[in-house]
Every structure is written in C-alpha cells, then in structure tokens.
C-alpha cells in the first residue's frame, strides 16, 4: 500500500497556569477543574480545528483524534464528537485512536456512533479501539482489574453488531444486552478498518496480530517501535500469514521548522509535562524548565498508580524490555530526541530522519504529532505547511529498507 500521512493533535487544554503544576505536582484526575476556563477552551477549540483543516489543505491524508478524561492532556472527552466535527472540516480520513472500550457499559452505543460517523463522512472512518489509560478507568469508574476482559468482550460484541444481522441477544461476562440490533450500520463493509492503539503493551500487540488488525504505536521510542513490529510479525508468522506495512501505524512527535535550530527550540513544546497524562513531580518540573508537551513524560512522578491501577497492567507489561526501553528515553529533552521520541529539524533534516524511521519500522500509517503543549499557533501552522508541502511528498514513495533489503538511511548528524 502507499504510505499514508496523518495529522495528530491531543488538542490539550494548554491554558493552564504553570504555577498550578507546581502547586499540585500533577495535571490529571485530581487536578481541580476550578482551574478550567471555558472561554479559553472555546478559543482553543477553534484554533485546534483550524489546524486540522489546514493539515488537510496542505496534503495530509487524514487526521487522528482520540479521547482522554480528567486531564489537561486532551480536551477530547469524546473521540466520536471530535471525529464528527473534524469530518466536516477535512477531506481525508478520520482515524479514531480511539474509543476506550472498557469504560463503556454499553458497547453497542459505540457501534452505533461509529456507524453514524461512517455514514456522515461517506466512509472516511478508521475505528481504533483502546483500553484507555489507567486514569480513564479511575475517571469513569471502570474496574481496572477487568480492563482487558472488558476490552476484548466489547470488541467482539461491536464486531458482531456490525457483521451479523440483528436482532440477537448478548449474554457475556461483562455485557448483557437483551436486544442487539443497531439500526444504522457502517457504510464500509464489512466494517470500517479497525485499529488497536497502545503504548507497547505486549499483550495488546499480540492480540492485535491475532485479530490481524493494524496496531498503532503511540508516541514511543524508535527502538521500542521496531521491537513492537517484530512481535507483531512473529505472531503473524506463527499463524501463517504475512502482515503488510498497513498493519503498523506509528504516531510520533514531530516538529519541523524552517531551520534545524528553530525546530530544536520549538520542539521543546513536545517535551515535558504540560499535558502529561497524570504524571507529575520531576516531569512537571521539567515542563517548567524545558517544555510544555507530553513526550518523555511516561514515567515517574508520585502517582504512577493512576496510570496503572491494580490489575490494569500485567506484570509482563510492566517489566518488558519495551517498557525498559521507553523508560530509558525519559531523561531529558535531548534524550527524548536521541531515542526518537521527538523528531525535529528542517524539512531536509526531517526527511532524512523519517527515511531512517521508515527503513526501520515500515509503518503504513505515519502520523505526525505536530501540535503539542503551548506551541504557538503560527509555528504549528508553519510546521503543518512544511510537512504537507515538502516532507510528505518526499516520503510518500520511499520504500522501507525492510522491504527492499537496502541499507538503512543513516540518521543525520
């Protein structure tokens, strides 16, 4: 398949006062919503939606939206509402990454809403499903110990609702529905493409490979992403099939500006704790001194329990090599750059960096996380323009060394 290039923004509430971070040491769950200013949020929404629209105008193939709760990280408390609005502002695909299934008590509602989206957008929807972070479980009171069971059961129920004529009854372990018979069904057949998205839980990668659905790696270091691809391919090999590039998506912090130096400075907005998923302490401190974004923010802090409440994460996931690789890249902004958690540069530099990334991971869907933190709107728009006009055209036909067997493009010095 031809590689697709998407735009992503958490659309985070970046209007928080920095002092509030210092005071509380975290930015999620118990971060008091008295800090929230609706008028600022209204303006942010308009700015963020304009950025999506502009990405479409500049030649991106689509936009990616997601969902978080009780968190300045993202103002998207319903991924389906985000997708509905964005679908009316862009021409391309809308990938939802996605609906956090375990937090829903009626997964058929999710099936209905995705069908509506697919119909309204004339079949431009990719339906990603996620387990949700630990904070999502705490925010919505979804039992974290049953997170994976609920995810898998909801997934099976939604898929059946889309593919098996109703009405039928569902009496499962976590879901019990007298009548499953959603009136509206998706336009795309048998259903919209389904993705799983995650931050490298080995079980989810294996599960996605078993389902033969695309796995989207969320903002992780390059080495860890390469390992993820290996696991996916290994499972597929065991099952006797060969994945294509379309089975891997890679979402990656990207800051392109006219010069390397400008991009390096602006890239700090991708690093730190402004939109940290509930983390704090050192991360919040680093945000104050270094940046305002979320890369490099995956570990530490006084409340890791919020990210991994009891039973949410397996022992294997906590101790896996990938978890370790991810942690290793969490030291500083420069460490995050070295690990490939954040990619910065002029168009020329960044094209070479992404050729290296494509050579090592061959993602069919490359998603540029190109707006983050308190990054100014004009810089974001310039970055979108450079990505659309210069970077994407140069990468679109670049074949991965994993396919050609040629040498990996070197990382620029």
């Amino acid at each position: 398949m031809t590689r697709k290039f998407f735009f992503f923004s958490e659309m985070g509430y970046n209007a928080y006062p920095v002092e509030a971070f210092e005071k509380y040491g975290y930015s999620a769950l118990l971060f008091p919503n008295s800090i929230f200013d609706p008028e600022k949020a209204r303006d942010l929404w308009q700015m963020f939606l304009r950025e999506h629209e502009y990405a479409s105008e500049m030649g991106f193939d689509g936009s990616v939206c997601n969902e978080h709760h009780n968190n300045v990280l993202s103002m998207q408390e319903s991924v389906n509402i985000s997708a509905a609005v964005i679908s009316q502002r862009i021409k391309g695909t809308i990938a939802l990454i996605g609906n956090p299934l375990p937090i829903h008590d009626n997964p058929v509602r999710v099936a209905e809403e995705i069908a509506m989206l697919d119909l309204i957008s004339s079949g431009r929807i990719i339906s990603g499903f996620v387990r949700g972070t630990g904070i999502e479980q705490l925010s919505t009171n979804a039992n974290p110990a049953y997170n994976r069971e609920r995810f898998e059961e909801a997934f099976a129920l939604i898929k059946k609702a889309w593919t098996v004529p109703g009405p039928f009854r569902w009496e499962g372990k976590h879901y019990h529905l007298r009548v499953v018979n959603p009136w509206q069904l998706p336009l795309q057949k048998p259903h919209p493409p389904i993705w799983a998205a995650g931050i490298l839980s080995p079980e989810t990668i294996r599960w996605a490979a078993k389902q033969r659905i695309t796995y989207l790696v969320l903002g992780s270091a390059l080495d860890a992403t390469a390992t993820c691809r290996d696991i996916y391919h290994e499972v597929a090999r065991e099952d006797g099939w060969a994945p294509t590039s379309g089975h891997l998506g890679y979402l990656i912090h990207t800051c392109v500006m006219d010069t390397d130096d400008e991009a390096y400075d602006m890239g700090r907005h991708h690093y730190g704790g402004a939109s940290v998923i509930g983390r704090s302490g050192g991360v919040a401190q680093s945000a104050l001194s270094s940046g305002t974004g979320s890369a490099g923010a995956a570990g530490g802090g006084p409340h890791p329990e919020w990210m991994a409440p009891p039973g949410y994460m397996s022992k294997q996931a906590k101790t896996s090599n990938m978890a370790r690789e991810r942690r290793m890249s969490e030291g500083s902004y420069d460490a995050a750059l070295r690990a490939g958690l954040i990619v910065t540069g002029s168009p020329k530099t960044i094209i070479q960096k992404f050729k290296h990334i494509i050579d090592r991971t061959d993602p069919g869907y490359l998603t540029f996380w190109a707006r983050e933190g308190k990054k100014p709107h004009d810089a974001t728009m310039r970055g979108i323009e450079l990505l659309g006009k210069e970077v994407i055209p140069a990468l679109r036909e670049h074949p991965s060394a994993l396919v050609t067997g040629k040498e990996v493009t070197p990382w620029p010095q």
Partner: protein
Amino acid sequence: MAAVNEAPHMMTDAAGITAELRRGGSGAPLLVIHGEFGVPGWLESFAQLAEHYDVIVPSLPGYGRSTRPDWIMDVHDLAAWVTWFARDLDLRTPANVIGCSLGGWVVAEIATVAPQFFNKLVLVGAMGIKPERGEIFDYFLEGGLTGLRRAFLRPEQSSEFMRYWGKEWTAEEADLIEQHREMTCRIAWKPYMHSLTLPHLLPGVITPTLLVWGREDAITPLECGEIYQHAIPHSRLTIIENCGHMPEIEKPAEFAHLVENFLAG
C-alpha cells in the same frame, strides 16, 4: 500454656481451589478471615489466641498463595467460598470467627444468611458499611505502601509492620502487594468497599458480636463501627486507643486479650 509461635503452614485443596492455610494451637476452632492485605505471617495475636484455640487462618482465593478462580467477582462469592472451605476442612460449627477489615465484611455477609455457622463473631475495622459522614479510604488512588502505612497509627512502632512491610520490598513482596490490591479491586471496586444491602440485613443477625475498632482508624472510619453496633442486636463496640485500622497487628496483645475475654464470656 506458652504462645504458639510457629504454626503449620500448608497448601490444601479445598472449596474448588488450592488454598494457603496457617493453623496452630488446640481447642475449639477459631476461624480468622483476613483483610485486604492478606496474611503476612503467623501473627503475634494468632500465637496468643492459639494458646486456647485451634486458630485457622486461610488465605482467601486470590490472596497469598491461594489460587484465584475467575468466577469470584464480589464479596458474596467470597462469603460462599468461606462456608464451603469450612465444610471441606470439617470445621466444627457453630464456630468462633474473626473477620478483619475486608474479611469482616465477608463474615458479616455470612452472618446475615447463615447464623448456624457462628458461635460468636468478632469484626475488626470491618468494611461493608458506607459511613454517613466520612469516607472509606480509597486504596486505589494511592500506591500500596501509602495504604499500608495509613492502616497503622504509628507504623514504625509496630514490630510486625516493620517485620513484614517496613523494609525495602523484594520483587516478590512487591508483586504480592499488587496481587492483593488487584484481588481487592476485583471484588470491591464499585460500590467501593461497601454493600448497599448489608446495613438492612444486619438487624437480622442473631450472633453475639464483638466489634473492635482502632480509635485512629484512618481506613474504615470509627463511625462504621458505630453503625454496625447499632444495626446488630447482640453486639458491642470496643475501641482500642492509640491504634489504627489493624489492631490485630498494631496492638496484638490487647487485641488477643479482648477476643479471649469475649469468647470466654
């Protein structure tokens, strides 16, 4: 008789699982149902009680080394399991039973449906009741150590806190803490650590009941003990001063003495 400092510690196939069991002493059976932290060892209070009783301390399914069947999803399931386990063990009933914290909730549920199971009942800092003023401390918003420390008024002055939890945990010990947190999550996530029906059923409990609460219980408010006491007809509430949520560990001698007097009376 000297304190029974060591007790046989075994795995036994019972009630559909392989269960970890500690048992020591001789006399009438005294069944102890542990709380959300599991059974860290043969406690000093067990040793003292074992001078006069056959003290039987199983680890509930999913706690300690007891296996976890996936069908156990709430406290009623655990309550049913306890009665099955007692039958498989040929436990002579009616028996004396102690239930600590989460285990107190489990045995209170049994008391509402199977009075013939009990001779006398001791509930210690028991979960299961929603306080009217305060809140039950939410373990799941904090880490394992934070919750453990909060369960003691002065953790550093408790020899058994220090012995079992006061040093740096090995990977295995940390895993066990997380395993207990997960199991507790499975059964008591929502409504958190309480039942909406239990308060209405407690007036039907006919078992003589001793309620033991630490004055400074920062997990299950003392108010919960008062609600239990008002609800259970033949109950009395005894408060241990300068003590947190786990009198059986923080004040072992005083606790054991109270229980002995109650059971003998």
